[in-house]
C-alpha cells in the first residue's frame, strides 16, 4: 500500500530503529513489534524495507549485528546501537522534533483576515 503515509514513514524508519535499539539490543522482529506496540498499532512497519534498512545501518556502522539465542532458545540476529549510532540518533531526533514542530505549526495556524 504505497500511499503517502508509508512514504513518509520510510524516512523516519531509521530514526525509529535507532531509538528502539537505544533501549536494548533487539532482533528485527522485536524492533518491528516494539514500534507497532508503541504506536498502538497505528504505524505498521513495512517489513520489506525494515531488513534492508537494518543492513544499511549496520553498513554505516550505526548498529552492530551479532548472532545470539533468544529466550525461546532460537538463533536470531541481534542488533545493538554503536557509539556512532547513539550520536546519529541524537542528531536525527533533534531534527525530527524541529521538523514535526514546524509541520504542526503549519497545520495549526489559520490565516488571519
Amino acid at each position, binding site marked *: 500500500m504505497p500511499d503517502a503515509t508509508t512514504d513518509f514513514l520510510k524516512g523516519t524508519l531509521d530514526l525509529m530503529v535507532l531509538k528502539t535499539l537505544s533501549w536494548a539490543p533487539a*532482533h528485527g*522482529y522485536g524492533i518491528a513489534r516494539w514500534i507497532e506496540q508503541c504506536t498502538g498499532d497505528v504505524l505498521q512497519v513495512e*517489513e520489506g524495507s525494515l*531488513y534492508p534498512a*537494518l543492513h544499511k545501518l549496520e553498513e554505516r556502522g550505526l548498529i552492530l549485528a551479532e548472532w545470539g539465542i533468544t529466550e525461546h532458545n532460537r*538463533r536470531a540476529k541481534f542488533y545493538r546501537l554503536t557509539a556512532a549510532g547513539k550520536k546519529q540518533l541524537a542528531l536525527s531526533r533533534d531534527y525530527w522534533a524541529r521538523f514535526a514542530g514546524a509541520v504542526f505549526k503549519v497545520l495549526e495556524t489559520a490565516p488571519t483576515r
Partner: protein
Amino acid sequence: MLDPQQTPAPNAQRAATWRRYLRFWGPRAEADVDDELAFHIDMRSREYMERGMTEADARRAATARLGDLAAARTECIAITSRRERRMTRAQLVDAFVQDVRFGWRTLGRQKGWSIVAGVTLALGIGANTAVFSVVNSLLLHPLPYPEAGRIAFVYQEPTEGNSTGMRVFVNPDPELVALWRANARSFEALEPYVSSDQALRASDGTQSTVRSAWVLPSFAAFTGTRPLIGRVFTGDDVAQGGHVVVLSEPFWRSRYGGDSTVLGKSVTLDRKVFTVVGVMPAAYRLPRLSDAVSDVWVPLDLRAKQRGLSVIGRRRPNVTMADAARELNAIYTRSDLAKGDHGEFRTKLSAPSELVSFRQSLVLLSSAVGLVLLIACGNVAHLLLARTAARQRELAIRAALGASRVRIVRQLLTESLLLGLAGCIGGALVGWLGLHALVAMRPDSLPELAEARIDRATLLVTAALAAVTGLVVGALGAMHALRHSAHDALKAGALSLSQTRGQRRLRSLLVVSEMAVSTVLLVGATLLVRSIVHLQTIDPGFDPRGLYAVQVNLPRTTYPTPAARRTFTQQLADRIRTAPGVRAVTIAAGAPPSRSFTIGALQVEGTPDPKPGTTGFVDYNGVSPDFFRTMGIKLLEGTTLTDTTRQARQALVNAGFAKKYWPGQSALGRRFRVVYDGKEEWTTIVGVVADAFTGGLTSEASTPMYYTSGQDLFEPVLIVRAAAGADPIANVRALMTQADASLGPPTISNIESALQRSVAGPRFTMLLLVVFTMLALVLAAVGLYGVMAYAVAQQTREIGIRIALGATRSTIAKTVLRRGVAMAFAGAVVGVLGARWGSKLLENMLYGVQRTDSASFSIGVLVLMLTAVAACLVPMRRAVSVDPLVSIKAD
C-alpha cells in the same frame, strides 16, 4: 504478548563458535540473511497463531506482510556481502599494522642485533644496487635513442678465417648502405655515420682540431632530437654539396659562448667552407658506446663513397634480429658488390648491449655481488635462527595463549620483512654511495660508466631483492620456529637440548655454504689479481718510456694520394728529428697500442696452399727500417729491413712466429705470404726480433710480422722518441704548423700512458672484484664467528664440566678451533669445485694465467682458512676462560 523489552536477550549467549569459523571459507551473507528472514517469519506466524489463525494461514500472512521478499533478500545480501568484503580487508590491514608495530618493537628491543642484521642486508643489497644500476644503464639501455629495444648495429664480418680472437667489423660499402636503405623492409631506419678529426678555422682565424660526425639528414629524426636553435640538415643541403654544419651544444657553448648569432656564420673545416645552420643539444650523440662526443655535424653524402661507415638501424616492430640480418644479407649477396669482394662477408646485426666493452666484466661483477648477497642472506638467516631460538619461549607462550601457527609465522615474516625494508633503504643508500665511488674511480678507458644512474628500475630491483631476501630469510626462521612444539619449549630444561640438533645442523650448513661461496670469490679475485700483476710486470718487448704517437690528419682534398701523404709525413718526420728533445722518429702504419691487420690466409713456404676465399686476419705492422731502433725492439737474428720500397719483399718476424713455424731452426731466409687471391709473391724473412706487445698489453700475442711500409700507408703515424725528461709535444705542434699552416693540430698521445690505459679496464674490474670479495669474506667471517660464539655460549656448561673433569685449556681450545676449521674446510672443498666451474666467467679476462691456475686456487683456500681461524679466535678465548664453578651452578 511479546514484550520487546525482553525479547532481546542482552546477555544472549554467543552463537556456536563453529559458525564463525565457517565464515573463513567464504562469504556467509546469503545464509545469514535467509536465517534472519526465516526467523522473522517464524516469529510473526507464531504471533498470528496466538491470535487464532491456523499454522498455514499464519505463515501465509506473515510472508505476505514482508512484501516483496525476494527483493528485500537480494538487497540485504548485497549490502552485507559488500560490508563483509570491506571488513575482511580492514581486518587484514589491521592485523598487518599490528604485526608491523609488534615487529618494530621487537626489533627495537634488540638494537644491536637489528643493526647487525640491517647493515649486513644493506651491504649485500647495496652492492647489488650499485652493480645493477651500471648494468641497467650500460647493458639494458646503452643508447639514448627512442625504441632502443629495436635498435641494432649493422656490420659485416668474414665468414671464416677470423683468427684474431676479436670481433671483426667490416664496414659496409657506402653503395651497399644505399642499397639497404632503398630496399630493406625489415627496418624503419638505417643510419650510416662516420666521424673523424678535422681542422676547424673559425671566421676570427682561430684554429682547432674538432671531432666531426657525418650523418644523413634523417639521423636527427632517428635519435628523436630537435635542434636547440636553427635547423638540422635537409636533403637539399646534401644535394647542393652539403656545405652546412650543425654545432653540438657543448662546442657551441665553449667556443661561441652560447651566442645564437652564430647561425649563418661560416667556418672552415679542412679548408672547405661551411655555413652554420643549427645547434643540436648535448644529448644528440653518435651511437658510439664509448667514444667522445662530436663537436660538429656535417651532412653525409652516400654518393661521395666515404669509407669507414658504421651503420645503426631500427627494426620494424615484430621483426627479429635474425630475419632482419637475413634480409640485409640477401640484398648484399644479390648485389654486384658481393661479386667484387674476394672474400665472403656475412651481414651481422648486434644489439648495442653486445658491444659494450665492459659487458663481460659486468656479467662477472653481477655474479659476484649476487654471491655477496647470498652470504649476507646466510648471515641474517643465521642471526634470525639464533634469535628464534632465544625467543622459543615467548613464541611458545603466545601459541599457548591461542595465537595460531599462521599468526606466529606471519609475525616472524613481518619482522624479517621489516629487516628487509631496512635493508632496502640502507641498500639504496649504500648503492648510491657505491655507484658514486665506482664512477669516481672509473678509468679513462670506460667513459660510459659516467652514464650510470640509479633510476626507477634500479630502485624497483632493490626493493624486490629486499623483499625476496626478507621472505626467504624469514621463512627459514619461521619454519624452524614451527618445528618445536609449545610443549617442548615450555619445558625449560628441555629447551637447549631439543633445539640444538636440528638448529646446529642448519647453522653449520649455512656457514659451510658461506665459506664455499667465499672460496669461489677468493679464487676468482686471486686469478684476476695474478693476471693484472702479470700484465704490469710483463716485458712489453719495447721501451714505451718517452714514446709519443703523432697522428696527422691529412685532408683528402689537399693530400689526395697515399704518395702525397707519405711525402708530407716524411718531410715532417725529418723536421721533427732535428728538434730539441727528440732522439728518434719513425713512420709506421700503426703506433702502440693498436693492431693492424691484413686480410688473407697466412701460408708458409712448403705448406699446402690455403683454400681459396679464406679471409683470415693477420696481424702485421708496416714499418720503416729504423722502427725497431726507435721503439727499442731487440733484433735477435739477421738484419733490419734494408729497402724502403717494398721491392725486395722483405719482412721481419718476431721470435714467437719463428718458433711456431720453424722450431729449433733459423727463420732467416724462409719465405711466407698472406694469400688473398692466390697470386701473391713470397716475402723473405731477413730478421727475427723480440716479441713486442705493440698491440697493447692485453692483446693475446705480440705483433708477429713487420713489413716495409712502402708508399701505400693509409694513415701514417709518426712515432717519436723523446729524450729523457723532454716533452716534445709543443715542438711537434709548432713544426707541423710550419709545414702546413692549414692543418689542424695533430693528435699526440703518450704511448706509455696509453699502454697503461689498456690495462686500466681489466685492473678496474679486478679492483671491484677484490672489493666485493673482501666484503664477502668479512661477512662470511662474521657468520662463522657468530656460529662459533653461539655454540660456545650454548655449551658453557658442558665446557665447565669438562674443565672440572680435568680437560686442559688447550684441549678445549682445540675442540672449538677444530669445529670452526672443519666447517671452513668443508666450505673450501665445495668452493674449489664451484670455482673450477665458475672461473669460466673469467675465460677471456685472464692474461698470462690459466683459469685453473693452481697457485690462485691455493692462495684462495689459504686466505679462507686463515680468515676462519681468525674468526674462531674470540670464541676460542671465551671457551677457555669458562669458569667451571660459575658455569655449572648457572641455570
